[in-house]
């Protein structure tokens, strides 16, 4: 599921199309994020396939990429959301409660550490994100009065019936691909309300699709509308029709209450129907196709690609996603649990193995790490019946 903030990032960053050259993320490292103390992966390709056992760090890797390419505070509740973790910070919260809402992002729940990411593109430019609690930006909340006094400033707070609370904000210190620095905070405002500073993603743009949820109806309809305006929707429709020829067309339609949804035109039916009503799996595949086209020049992160898709479609799904990745210069990170799904990649990989890379999340002695395999060795292993999961 993607939040609405992603609708704002559909414009391809200037970096991604600089000099008309396709720039992809070539290497990535992160420290102190979720299960990762420190990982570094290099030689990333157009299609990066992520495998590994449960709890090995597949989803965390995709999340780290999302954090590293977006770099805005909005990522935090969004990532919690796809994990099914409610992100709740009540008004007039204590500092412990405030920090507690973010602890699961820190390796070993250590709020004293700093999460860092560094994504380097094919032009050798690097975007950095450092996420830490920043005492120098602490704010003191006086609940009944609502004064804000910088900590250590010596300022006198107004008298109050309840004790003042000092909140140490969560800082997102960012350096984008052009070397520009900025810091965004998650903090509490003087009224004791949560405040997340908005900001532009560092780029390239990134979408994230988890196995349990595929884009919200409003947002996918919005993406399709945008593509229609740009006359690029045909690519999506044609790709979908290659899989499901019984669907004539898909269009964004406005329903009652002004809500938008994607509808399918099926010749045998007297009226258009919501695509999600046709099939959850078709709707998910449509969303992935839509993302690969919409996030042109950017990165799409897909968790558990096989979810909801009939096994006979696997080979065609790989062909479609790879084709769109080439056509739209979209870099894909795709996780899978299914050996059947992985083996179905073979026809697509054949003669394009340099465009593929396998990343295997693993845990050894309690330490999470990522093994990286060249496309040609990955392809040979699939062909010879080796199980890479």
């Amino acid at each position, binding site marked *: 599921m993607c939040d609405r903030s992603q609708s704002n990032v559909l414009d391809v960053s200037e970096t991604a199309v600089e000099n008309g050259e396709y720039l992809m993320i070539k290497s990535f490292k992160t420290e102190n994020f979720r299960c990762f103390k420190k990982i570094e992966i290099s030689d990333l390709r157009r299609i990066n396939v992520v495998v590994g056992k449960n709890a090995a760090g597949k989803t965390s890797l995709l999340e780290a990429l999302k954090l590293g390419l977006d770099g805005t505070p909005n990522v935090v509740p969004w990532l919690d959301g796809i994990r099914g973790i409610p992100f709740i910070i009540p008004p007039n919260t204590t500092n412990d409660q405030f920090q507690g809402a973010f602890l699961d992002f820190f390796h070993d729940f250590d709020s004293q550490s700093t999460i860092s990411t560094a994504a380097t593109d094919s032009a050798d430019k690097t975007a950095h994100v450092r996420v830490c609690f920043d005492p120098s930006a602490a704010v003191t909340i006086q609940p009944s009065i609502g004064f804000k006094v910088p900590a250590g400033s010596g300022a006198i707070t107004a008298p109050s019936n309840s004790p003042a609370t000092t909140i140490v904000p969560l800082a997102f210190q960012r350096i984008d691909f052009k070397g520009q620095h900025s810091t965004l905070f998650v903090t509490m405002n003087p009224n004791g309300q949560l405040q997340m500073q908005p900001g532009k993603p560092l780029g390239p743009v990134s979408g994230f699709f988890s196995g349990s949820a595929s884009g919200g109806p409003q947002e996918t309809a919005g993406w399709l509308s945008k593509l229609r305006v740009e006359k690029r929707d045909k690519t999506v429709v044609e790709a979908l029709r290659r899989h499901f020829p019984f669907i004539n067309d898909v269009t964004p339609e406005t329903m009652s209450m002004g809500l938008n949804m994607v509808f399918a035109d099926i010749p045998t039916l007297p009226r258009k129907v919501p695509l999600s009503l046709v099939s959850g799996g078709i709707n998910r595949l449509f969303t992935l196709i839509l993302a690969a086209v919409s996030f042109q020049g950017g990165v799409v992160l897909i968790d558990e690609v096989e979810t909801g898709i009939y096994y006979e479609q696997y080979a065609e799904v790989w062909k479609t996603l790879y084709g769109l990745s080439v056509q739209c210069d979209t870099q894909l990170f795709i996780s899978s649990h299914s050996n059947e799904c992985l083996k179905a990649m073979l026809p697509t990989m054949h003669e394009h193995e340099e465009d593929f890379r396998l990343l295997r999340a693993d845990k050894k002695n309690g330490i999470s790490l990522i*093994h990286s395999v060249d496309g040609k060795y990955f392809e*040979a292993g699939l*062909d*010879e*019946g080796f*199980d890479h999961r």
Partner: protein
Amino acid sequence: MSILLDHVVKTIPHPFLVVCEGYGDARFIVKLLGHLKIRNCNVGCPSMTGGHGTGITAIPNYLNAVRGVIQIGTANLSGLLVIPDADKHPGNCFSDICTALTDAMFPIPSQPFSVEGNPMRTAVFIMPGKGRTGTLEHLLWDAATTQNPKLKKCVDRFCRCTGGHINSAPENAKVKMKMSAIVAAHCQGNPWASPAWMWSEKDNPVPIDSPCFKEVSDFLTVFTT
């Protein structure tokens, strides 16, 4: 010892790996390793269902697959032995294997029948042995006829009178036919048994402890020690 011949191979558990051209060769090496009580060795061969088939032309893909397993972190190899068939040209065979080893980022030995390299050792043993042309079946034929010298004359006569193309067939095909004939004749419980499958048949005509296997046995011992 572990046989990497399952439908899906998840890992290469032992420090040494022997790569053969096909299933028949791999089954022989597995039997021999068992006889030699060598237990730290995997044996594998290209998949019959893979896009590259079996035989020496499939070995480059198999070695690439092994490299992938090493990169993925599920193998920690100390040694890699490739056992191709010499056929008519042992020299070409060695150079083809060296090219494949290099492509898969393995070190190459300076010559066949030599175990070289540290910490990762590689070697190429060309069947049926030093200074010979042919295939594994030549070795098996030697072993069967050494144990039972009457077999040679009998099977040669069978070849002459059975008709078909056997008399005009290349030498490698001839010996495979002869082996198939004697295996089928000996394995009462399974007349369909072939040299690849005869090792599980109690009446198989090839003794695994034959002196004909000394060269390859000694080499396997050196390689895995």
